[in-house]
């Protein structure tokens, strides 16, 4: 009996029981559906074992959307609880669990896979490559992320969710104050997906350094690839810090070590420092690729080259360096001396300078351009003023003396959502709309898209701007309720309405996908937006080998110049193309990782050891394996190309130009 009690949820509520039933029903539904439609084989061959960067990108994209809804449900519950004073919807414990899981899911299991999706979908195409440097490692990265996310997500139905905030500060996160297994889930789930992220970082750095098309020097790389490059360098240097911090946190909780305890010499501030040495750069891992997407979109829909290409690149490099030098601004009030605070205050504010440079570059790009107000462009235009406001309040928070006033209030919550939603979420949705036709072969409906944009923007302003006021008025963050007398009621009600509008907007996205799938015309050609970089130079749908012949690049807008100035992109003969074989190992190995993670959470040592041995066996097998991939022969490539009807004359080109 005692054994089973470990898996019971410490604070059950009707909502959790309902979710359990829902999870069980959905799982059964999926299994039955797959069996009924005889799709198991298809699923295995085409998806679970794939090493194709495009398919992996799509799987990242779907997971991110799924997690957006999980994190969004948490957000709505929080806003509903806070909408009125003294509300009884959630109790304190449940609220703690929800803000914790909301934060973790949104940052690590929604925003991260979203940008990884774009790395996978776009970077190889944009540099004219056939795949990433290590396709199989890429699949492993995805599956590790995925099982990490799943491990985290089952916490609320098995054993209880983490409740110490997404920052998981010790000693609160230690065994004395976080008694359920929740924080174990936090440590292990993030560890597993973090290993995947690190490998993505290594993979993409290698890809971008070594696999660019002939002629594409660093300073001719498209802006999104640049941003991905820098973000991946940050990944390589930031994630190991998190790995170590999580190992230590796990050791404290499971093995009674004393890293972060308040006795036996432990030091809780060490966690705070390590967490933010990773955590602050993490924010730039998310925002730089978002900037990259905006750059692509703004230059396409302004019909102009990006203004100040070099300044853009250098400002990103500067931001990435500074991002490692500001971490203590997250705990100005936790008792480090005035000198330390001043230094970090200055480095923090310095980041505003290169960021400002970028904002002006986008504005100048639009300045003389002929703007087309498509959905992706609306997001990009909306982003600029909203993000600027978020940046300004960031500078306010960066003043350490003043921070004593707003620290841990809703002002902070308003600030970071104000940067991360217009900055990252808008960029993701803009990118989703922009790249959808390339990957799925049809456009998303523009009317619904624009409606979504307005719902989201208005919802966002209503949801978060009132928090600046209530925060300055003293409403603390992470408080599950407040009394009528505080007067916070009306502002919070407004926030709730905003959050509800945002929820509607997210539903509208799903509806848009469904609607467009049913109604949008196919045969849209390979370049429906009249775009500028190489990913639009290949066919739609993209053949598995991406490019029959690798492009020859001579400018940073290679495809545009090919269309406008008649540069020849594809020269020479079609040759045999080497491709990697599919493999089931990444998937299987990740499942074993899941078992290991789960066993560690509950301190079930026997299965944990068996699973770890399983992981090593997989690695050993990989070491002995001889897998040279296969070749698509030139003849076959030519036949495929002929099916697209344009082996020699790129008919799309004329169609695209004539439409403008």
């Amino acid at each position: 009996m005692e054994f089973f009690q470990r898996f019971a949820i410490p604070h059950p509520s009707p909502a959790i029981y309902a979710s359990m039933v829902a999870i069980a029903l959905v799982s059964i539904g999926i299994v039955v559906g797959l069996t009924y439609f005889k799709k198991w084989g298809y699923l295995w061959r085409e998806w679970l074992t794939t090493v194709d960067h495009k398919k992996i990108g799509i799987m990242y994209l779907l997971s991110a959307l799924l997690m957006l809804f999980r994190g969004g449900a948490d957000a709505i519950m929080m806003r509903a609880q806070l909408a009125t004073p003294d509300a009884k919807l959630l109790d304190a414990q449940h609220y703690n669990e929800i803000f914790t899981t909301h934060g973790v899911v949104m940052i690590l299991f929604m925003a991260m896979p979203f940008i990884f999706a774009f790395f996978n979908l776009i970077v190889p195409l944009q540099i004219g490559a056939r795949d990433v440097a290590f396709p199989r490692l890429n699949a492993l990265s995805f599956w590790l992320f995925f099982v990490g996310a799943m491990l985290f997500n089952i916490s609320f139905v098995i054993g209880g969710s983490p409740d110490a905030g997404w920052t998981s500060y010790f000693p609160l996160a230690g065994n004395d104050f976080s008694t359920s297994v929740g924080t174990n889930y936090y440590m292990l789930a993030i560890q597993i997906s973090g290993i995947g992220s690190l490998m993505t970082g290594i993979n993409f750095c290698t890809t971008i350094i070594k696999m660019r098309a002939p002629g594409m020097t660093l300073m001719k790389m498209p802006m999104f690839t640049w941003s991905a490059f820098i973000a991946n360098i940050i990944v390589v240097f930031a994630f190991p810090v998190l790995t170590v911090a999580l190992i230590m946190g796990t050791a404290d909780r499971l093995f009674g070590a004393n890293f972060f305890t308040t006795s036996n010499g432990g030091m809780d501030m060490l966690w705070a420092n390590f967490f933010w040495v990773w955590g602050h750069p993490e924010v730039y891992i998310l925002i730089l690729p978002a900037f990259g997407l905006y750059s692509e979109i703004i230059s396409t829909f302004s019909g102009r080259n990006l203004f100040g290409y070099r300044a853009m690149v250098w400002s990103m490099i500067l931001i990435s360096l500074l991002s490692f030098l500001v971490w203590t601004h997250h705990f100005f009030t936790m008792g480090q001396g005035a000198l330390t605070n001043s230094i970090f205050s200055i480095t923090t504010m310095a980041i505003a300078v290169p960021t400002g440079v970028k904002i002006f570059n986008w504005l100048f790009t639009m300045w003389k351009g002929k703007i087309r107000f498509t959905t992706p462009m609306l997001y990009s235009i909306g982003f600029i003023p909203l993000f600027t406001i978020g940046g300004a309040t960031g500078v306010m928070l960066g003043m350490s003396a003043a921070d004593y006033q707003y620290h841990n209030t809703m002002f902070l919550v308003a600030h970071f959502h104000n940067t991360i939603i217009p900055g990252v979420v808008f960029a993701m949705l803009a990118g989703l709309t922009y790249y959808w036709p390339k990957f799925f072969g049809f456009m998303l409906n523009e009317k619904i898209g624009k409606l979504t944009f307005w719902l989201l923007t208005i919802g966002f302003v209503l949801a978060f701007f009132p928090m600046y006021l209530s925060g300055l008025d003293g409403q603390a963050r992470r408080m599950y309720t407040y009394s009528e007398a505080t007067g916070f009621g009306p502002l919070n009600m407004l926030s709730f309405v905003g959050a509800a509008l945002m929820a509607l907007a997210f539903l509208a996205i799903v509806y848009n996908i469904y609607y467009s799938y049913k109604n949008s015309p196919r045969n849209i050609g390979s370049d429906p937006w009249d775009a500028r970089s190489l990913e639009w130079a290949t066919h739609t749908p993209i053949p598995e080998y991406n490019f029959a012949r690798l492009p020859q690049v001579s400018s940073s807008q290679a495809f545009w110049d090919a269309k406008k100035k008649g540069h020849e992109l594809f020269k020479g003969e079609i040759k045999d193309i080497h491709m990697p074989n599919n493999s089931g190992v990444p998937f299987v190995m990740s499942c074993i990782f899941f078992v290991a993670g789960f066993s560690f959470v509950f301190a079930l040592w026997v299965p944990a050891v068996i699973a770890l041995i399983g992981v090593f066996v997989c690695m050993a097998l990989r070491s002995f394996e001889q897998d040279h991939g296969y070749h698509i022969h030139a003849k076959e490539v030519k036949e495929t190309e002929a099916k697209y009807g344009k082996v020699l004359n790129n008919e799309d080109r004329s169609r695209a130009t004539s439409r403008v």
Partner: protein
Amino acid sequence: MKIDHAQPLEYSTDQNQLNILGFWIFLGAEIMLFATLFTAYFTLSHRTGSGPTPAEIFEITPVLIETFALLTSSFTIGLGIHAMRLGRKNAMVTFFGITLLLGLCFLGVEIFEFMTYYHEGATYQTSAFTAALMTTLGTHGAHVTLGLFWGTFIIIQVIKRGLTPQTANKAFIFSLYWHFLDVVWIFIFSFIYLKGMM
């Protein structure tokens, strides 16, 4: 697979070059990993609670043996790679074998050392200092252990398949890994042991 004969075997295909670059980047991440561990150790090394201090438990003899074993193994693996470049398979396998034996010797002494700590009342749970010490040493030791397996697999493959672009590539990458562990050990030796004994 296109093989470029102007290059040494381990660099001779495109994929080989990618592998080596990728591994260097991985080593960059490893440097961050150990740097973080060292930071933790330096922050916590004076925080001994009611447990022993570094000076009370460190002993020079086993550490010198470990250092000697590991430094020598770095040298022998260098000889192994040299032999590989000359195409002398048997010499290479021998040197790799010696390398792994030295690694095993290192590991044996380290385990003995951990047991001594344990008997002296310095366990993982004793204090922040002991936890940081054993995590740092343990991470390095776990890397060595993994290396022993990995190296063994590579020796088997070289014996079975000969020196091909693939096996040469694997052996070369393994040697980078092994040298890296040696460099980390030099830091451990100087900044943990020597400093702690002073």
